[in-house]
């Protein structure tokens, strides 16, 4: 059988990315042009500026991905693109580029859900075994996904307010840490002690949903109160205590979900999967379960990239998922509805 080559394109937020993946598991190239330096001065991603940068970068990035992979368009099996969710203007650049390439070379076009991409980053590390539970944590998402097979996604838990990454960014700002704050909190937390008992939002029994807005408010109030009383809180301790609250809830709910659904694997995905506190805690928790395997992608596959889109696209291609030239960017695309299985 011929090898399958998928070109992946991802522009849902502030990274312009293209990659070529062979047979859904082998990275031939993985090129990411980050805009983080440009958005830093605004303290967050500005959608219009992100869209402008994508237009500047997109051809460079795709050319580099094709050259590094040493493939021609005639070698490709299909083109996979993130069609949502994300910033609509940013998504559009990738979607229009992918459609144009598919049209020019008469190639199949495969729409990919951004979160499905994050989950499939794991398949670039180890083969997936079903059923499994994936914990997706990033600046925009905090979700627990149950998968009984390839292409099947059931959202069993999600945040009811802020995403975990959002809470990280807000606490980082409170502590005067530079944007993006997540990595800085993680670094500080490693040096601090858990001395403040911040709340944990467990919600209803059996619920796999999350909530971080109460925690965020508690951190803000604690820091402000201390400031007013002239008490000096060590930022390291605030970071450690905050991170302890976030990771405890994330890890406990993930383990509970894995038990309930009889999962063989737990996958960690999304930008916050780069967080050492979370990685360590989850690794430790899984040690107690003999038949439960934990997969964590390397850092560069946790943040937004196109190899993960190509990896997911590879599976969707086999499932017969196709889009035509009228494919639109869908900023609110739902993962459950994207599922190829009921």
């Amino acid at each position: 059988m011929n090898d399958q080559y998928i070109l992946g394109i991802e522009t849902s937020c502030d990274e312009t990315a293209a990659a070529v993946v062979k047979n859904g598991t082998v990275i031939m190239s993985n090129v990411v042009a980050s805009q983080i330096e440009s958005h830093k001065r605004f303290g967050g991603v500005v959608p219009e500026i992100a869209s402008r940068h994508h237009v500047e970068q997109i051809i460079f990035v795709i050319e580099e991905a094709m050259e590094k992979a040493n493939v021609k368009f005639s070698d490709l099996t299909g083109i996979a693109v993130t069609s949502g969710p994300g910033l609509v203007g940013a998504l559009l650049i990738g979607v229009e580029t992918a459609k144009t390439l598919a049209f020019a070379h008469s190639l199949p076009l495969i729409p990919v859900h951004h979160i499905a991409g994050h989950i499939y980053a794991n398949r670039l590390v180890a083969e997936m075994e079903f059923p499994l539970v994936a914990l997706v944590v990033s600046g925009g998402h905090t979700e627990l996904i149950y998968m009984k097979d390839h292409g099947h996604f059931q959202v069993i838990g999600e945040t009811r307010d802020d995403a975990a990454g959002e809470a990280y960014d807000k606490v980082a700002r409170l502590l005067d840490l530079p944007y993006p704050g997540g990595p800085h909190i993680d670094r500080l937390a490693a040096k601090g002690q858990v001395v403040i008992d911040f709340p944990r939002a467990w919600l209803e029994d059996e619920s796999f949903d999350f909530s971080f807005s109460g925690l965020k408010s508690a951190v803000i109030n604690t820091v402000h109160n201390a400031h007013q009383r002239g008490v000096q809180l060590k930022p390291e301790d605030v970071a450690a205590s905050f991170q302890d609250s976030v990771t405890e809830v994330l890890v406990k709910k993930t383990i509970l979900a894995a038990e309930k659904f009889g999962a063989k694997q737990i996958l960690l995905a999304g930008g916050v999967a780069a967080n050492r506190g979370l990685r360590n805690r989850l690794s430790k928790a899984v040690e107690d379960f003999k038949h439960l395997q934990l997969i964590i992608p390397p850092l560069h596959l946790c943040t937004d990239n196109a190899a993960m889109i190509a990896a997911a696209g590879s599976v969707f291609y086999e499932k017969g998922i196709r889009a035509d030239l009228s494919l639109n960017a869908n900023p609110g695309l739902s993962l459950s509805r994207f599922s190829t299985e009921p």
Partner: protein
Amino acid sequence: MNVLAIDTSTNVLGVGVVNKEKVIGEYITNIKRNHSTRVLPAIEYLLKDCGLGIKDIHKIVVAHGPGSYTGLRIGLTIGKTLAWTLKIPLTGVSTLHLMAASGRYFEGLISPIIDARRGNIYTGLYKFSNGEWTNVLEDQHISAVEWAKKLNEYNEHVLMIGENAPTFQSVFETTLKDRVNFASVTVHNPRPGELGLIGMDQPEVDVYSFVPNYLRLAEAEAKWREKMGN
């Protein structure tokens, strides 16, 4: 040489195929619907109807702004990607020049108008004489009131083109009196054929770095520069 022309700068979606001898085909709509879902299907449909394949296209011409930011990016992204992957030249033409082109037989000055909101417009001043286009005043983002004053310095008739032009009718008539003329609705939609013809002999641009001519900074960028004292 067949040129594929793409214009998605405003609500008007225009796609055309032209060569030196004739405009082979044009697809134009003026409706408020997503360009993103419709441009590539329009290109596919037009080429097929004209009995052409994408490999029969030798150059891409895109209207590069000003106009709707998202609209411009859609047309440019498609144009850049096609030119790059088919290894053919790409060029950009001012959207305002394109709009003015429909008024080429007007004896006087031509001012294409795109509404930029809050009393502002995107416009420029163009003139066609002796078979040549002249850009009298460069494309700019300006208040309609200021623009009327500038136009008043020329002792010539002015033709306003563009479906947003009537929005500013009273502003222009107050200053320019009977020297201002408004094009009819049949002239407002830019012609992709004109776009292809204007761009046909223009030098090619670098496909990698080619970006829209937004004429305005992103709002956040403008505020940031102000804060930095720029």
